């Protein structure tokens, strides 16, 4: 299970504090060193770790914590609160107000955009919406075919103009098609691209300008390492993200990317991918996740 390794490490780092009647600054310092290592081993970005640890330390050595009746518990509570904060506080839902509402999926190559488009279409259909999947990836071999197969699996229409058309036009026409067909939600799959590929990033900006999406979701592989912050920062700077989808959380990654991405973009994780099948998508709950990580 994802986060499990992080959970174990954090809990053992904090275990020593738990039962203590008296906790000094020294105890906190030792515990925080362990917390730092646990987070780094979980791929949380090292700058984010630095900030996190110093914030927790500052709060933990504050009078009300160390002088309390259960100082160890209080420190753990601080860690839990800060961890929850780091993951976005409370659950963030999709905000779909326009008619039709438009959702754009963006991200690096292989992150899980196309799969998530299918999953999210299915999820929204279950909420009585009428989604249209739009095949905006004209570059990857058989990307359109992949979306069509997913469309069949979730029983949703797929709009495509083949791979010779410009993705901006495909997106525009896709939205027009949804209007014609009385569909209320448009999910645009886009090609994977590197955040440093200027031409390809321009293409996304042009799609955004043209279709004015309600949501631009960055799809992030939960196994991503230290580079997650660079990627998320760039996509956010160029496009103004509204949310993040973390995929492949059915693996055994410690999932630090989840913590890093939120902290650098201030964009909430809205969904998590829990498998390859179309029903493996779940809304993300930061408080539950933080508590689970800390075994509370």
């Amino acid at each position, binding site marked *: 299970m994802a986060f499990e390794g992080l959970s174990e490490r954090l809990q053992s780092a904090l275990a020593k504090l738990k039962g203590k009647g008296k906790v000094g600054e020294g105890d906190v310092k030792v515990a925080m060193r362990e917390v730092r*290592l646990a987070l*780094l*081993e*979980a*791929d949380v970005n*090292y700058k984010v770790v630095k900030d996190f640890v110093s914030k927790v330390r500052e709060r933990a050595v504050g009078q009300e914590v160390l002088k309390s009746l259960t100082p160890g518990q209080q420190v753990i509570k601080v860690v839990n609160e800060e961890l929850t904060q780091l993951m976005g506080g409370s659950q963030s839902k999709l905000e779909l107000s326009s008619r039709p509402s438009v959702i754009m999926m963006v991200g*690096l*190559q*292989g*992150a*899980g955009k*196309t*799969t998530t488009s*299918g999953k999210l279409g299915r999820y929204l259909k279950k909420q009585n919406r009428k989604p249209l999947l739009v095949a905006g990836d004209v*570059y*990857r*071999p*058989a*990307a359109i*075919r*992949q*979306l*069509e*197969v*997913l469309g069949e*699996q979730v029983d949703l229409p797929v709009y495509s103009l083949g791979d010779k058309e410009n993705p901006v036009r495909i997106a525009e026409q896709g939205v027009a098609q949804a209007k014609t067909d009385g569909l209320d939600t448009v999910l645009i799959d886009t090609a994977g691209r*590197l*955040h*440093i590929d200027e031409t390809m990033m321009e293409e996304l900006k042009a799609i955004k300008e043209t279709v004015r999406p309600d949501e631009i979701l960055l799809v992030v*592989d939960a*196994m*991503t*390492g*230290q*580079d*997650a912050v*660079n*990627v998320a920062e760039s996509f956010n700077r160029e496009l103004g993200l509204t949310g993040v989808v973390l995929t*492949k959380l*059915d*693996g*055994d*990654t*410690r999932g*630090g*990317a989840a913590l890093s991405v939120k902290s650098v973009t201030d964009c909430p994780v809205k969904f998590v991918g829990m498998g*390859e099948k179309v029903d493996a998508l779940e809304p993300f709950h930061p408080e539950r996740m933080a508590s689970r990580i800390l075994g509370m």
Partner: protein
Amino acid sequence: FRRSKIDEDLYEELEEILIAADVGVNATMEIVERLRTEVKERKVKEPEALKPLLSEILLEILKGEEEEDIGMNTVDDDLSIILFVGVNGVGKTTTIGKLAHYYKEQGKKVVLAAGDTFRAGAIEQLEVWGDRVGVDVIRHQAGSDPAAVIFDGIQAARARGADILICDTAGRLQNKVNLMEELKKVHRVIGREVPGAPHETLLVLDATTGQNAMKQAQIFNEATRVTGIVLTKMDGTAKGGIALAIRRELGVPVKWVGLGEKMDDLQPFDSEQFIHALFVEEVEKEA
């Protein structure tokens, strides 16, 4: 490193470079510890000497114990089989296209086997690559048994007098026991049909991946005895430092590097270049 002396801050800075490159906490600590020892033993005083010394240590790790050949273990006078394995979305199918192109350029006859029968559009994706490169693709229907596809691939490659058969497999997370068993079966079938095969089992790792790549390497290696790593997406800003930790821990060498999505974006691994890139800031890399 514009500093007047070697101090704790300097070591910390180096530590951060390694951590930021995904080398991992344990490997980083040990490497920096070794650096400290070398500095003492060699009585190094100049801060400028530290980076070259660190590079030297890293290079030693990457090159492994003995200077073994990191070239491909293909055979010349018979069919060679290359099996691709790895987690989801790392670049297996794309790399197969690139490698097929590489061998075709060398005048080899190449056949591809579409062993990913699971992911939507996976077979068609490999077929597009087959067309691009101009090599045959052996396929069954979506949802069929991957081991059967590979079996047919071997027979077809034999019948057509191919030099190289490259087998695609579905991406799978290493903690999925059933899927790893399925992969073992594919591996067994290849070994049974062609003694000594697969000649190469290449684990594809996405350079963007963090510490989980170590687990990927460990578990795929247990399942299929990995002979080499392909480190993909090195055209981005990720450094792929976990490959260093994997080399150190498991001894598996990186053989290829993926540098883009096109047919010729594949290069043999160059350890010196890799280490140099660890120290290059993004800004310079982009320029």
